[in-house]
């Protein structure tokens, strides 16, 4: 009962009620409906559709693409954030604004532009093709698009932390005889790591759920290059709603589990350090 004792700040009850109802409507109700749909058949059918060979290959494709892209994005995003925060140069503000474009651009447009640009008829694809490099509908191009859609997440989470970082610490490290590499690893890295991990998990989750661009750049071959979200839409088109919702549940659980794991690890790290 003590937890519900009057708080100093008024309005707790009414705002909590509002929040719970709102979340219930927008998040829990649809997710509940999805779960209900998936479990309305017998559990055997659910497992059969959720772990169908085609679904397994789709999960793996989504996971491997999103993971590779997120790892690369973590490095590239950190680099970009570093440049934006630490240096002053002409066009910095413009560059800063450009970072947000992937947020605003519909991913289907990104997918279409990438696939056209790198096709044998596109000017970049034509040039690469003459040199024996064919990228259209390859795993590599898909990861490239995920790099595009994901990197603002890393930049935007790391950037504020880097800005807050006190220059004194680095000076102190230098005075105490640390070389630049040591300063980076032992002084800067621990402070930005949580933000970096958050950026990674956001980019990763984005990649797992990506549909609009992947449907254009991937070859979407079932059992081979089809990803989770593409599989789900494909299942819906086949009027196999139960298969679609089973795959959706697995994707949801996997993403949620992974985000939870990353957050927990991060919390533990913070409390230890």
């Amino acid at each position, binding site marked *: 009962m003590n937890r519900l004792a009057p708080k100093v700040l008024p309005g707790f*009850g*009414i705002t909590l*009620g509002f929040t719970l*109802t709102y979340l219930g409507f927008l998040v829990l109700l649809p997710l509940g409906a999805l779960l209900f749909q998936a479990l309305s058949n017998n559990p055997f059918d659910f497992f059969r559709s959720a772990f169908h060979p085609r679904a397994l290959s789709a999960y793996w494709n989504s996971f491997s693409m999103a993971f590779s892209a997120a790892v690369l994005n973590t490095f590239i995003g950190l680099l970009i954030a570093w440049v934006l925060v630490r240096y002053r140069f002409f066009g910095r503000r413009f560059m800063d604004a450009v970072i947000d474009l992937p947020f605003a651009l519909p991913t289907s447009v990104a997918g279409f532009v990438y696939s056209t640009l790198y096709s044998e008829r596109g000017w970049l694809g034509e040039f690469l093709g003459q040199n024996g490099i064919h990228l259209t509908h390859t795993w590599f191009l898909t990861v490239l698009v995920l790099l595009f859609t994901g990197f603002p997440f890393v930049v935007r989470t790391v950037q504020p932390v880097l800005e807050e970082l006190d220059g004194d610490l680095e000076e102190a490290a230098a005075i105490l005889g640390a070389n630049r590499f040591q300063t980076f690893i032992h002084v800067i890295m621990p402070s930005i790591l949580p933000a970096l991990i958050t950026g990674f998990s956001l980019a990763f989750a984005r990649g797992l759920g990506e549909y609009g661009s992947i449907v254009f750049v991937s070859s979407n071959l079932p059992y081979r290059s089809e990803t989770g979200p593409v599989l789900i839409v494909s299942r819906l*088109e086949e009027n196999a709603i139960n298969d679609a919702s089973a795959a959706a549940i697995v994707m949801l659980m996997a993403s949620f589990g992974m985000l939870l794991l990353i957050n927990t690890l991060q919390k533990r790290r913070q409390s230890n350090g």
Partner: protein
Amino acid sequence: MNDYLISICKGAMACLVLVVGALFLSLVASPRRGSLELLHASFDTSREILAAWHQEITDSPVSNAWGNPNFRISNAGSAAQARAVRDGLPADIASLNFEPDWQILAKAGLVASDWRSRLPGGKAPWHSSLVLVVRKGNPHDIRDWEDLLTKPVKVIMPNPKTSGVARLAVLSFWEARRRAGSPASADIDLISLCKKVPVFDPSMRTCTTTFAQKGIGDVQITWEPEAWLEVEESAGKLELIRPKSSFRIEPAIGMVEPVAKSKGTILLVQKYLEWIYNPPAQEILAKYHFRPLDKNVAKLHQDQFPPVDWITIQDIAGDWDKAVEIFFKDGGLVDRALREAAKR
């Protein structure tokens, strides 16, 4: 404690009021239905025909006699459209180019399962065939389905798991190969065909983009009206090839009775469904390269529509239910072929 529960409830009430208010506002803001309105939900590539039909009606005295109805069109892939209508899209008329999609609506009690019997004369207003599109000069000398196997070509077609036309292409190809060999050899040929497909786009239109604009693949399997448009647009860079045999594609078309009843448009829909058999409507079909039913109109355009050795579902599997069972259900022939093709 009690006070807190009450204030939590108050918050919940406030949220509900907000949500209901927003819903109410969106209802008020949505356009009101004025005069009679007819919504035709149709498959993707019929967009231009329907627009031309409706224009023709609006411009002719027919419109007045019908009470100047407003025509509206909804276009999407055949399967997506079937789902939309089943889930409540208030379409008075539906037309779908893949029979099993129609049966989704029939099972939901929205349309008559035997749509042909409800149409004037018991026949579909048009039919169409599957064709191949190749690059200028036909460098691989593609003439028939067989050449897709024997020539070193990459084949572009939509995903047979999602696209109605791709499924019809699979059926055409399989039946043509069965006639040349046996069911077992046709099965193997289908696997070989799947191995030659470098990318599955979700729909026929996206395939056209892949083939014509991105320049991927050597042969595209598509249907006649789409191929015409594509070839005309390419200004000589693409050529149309007609295989000797093709599935006879007929659109399932008819009234969505419960919707028409509630909107009071039953009579109007009946008139509409009769009108599309008239020469002006049939002429529009021919203009957009759909083979018209009307003999006179067909004769006028006969050079555009050379004869084809038609394949029907009876030839392949007896009926649609069996065909879906054999070819398209999970673990069916198409699924097996895709799986085999993935192991390269």
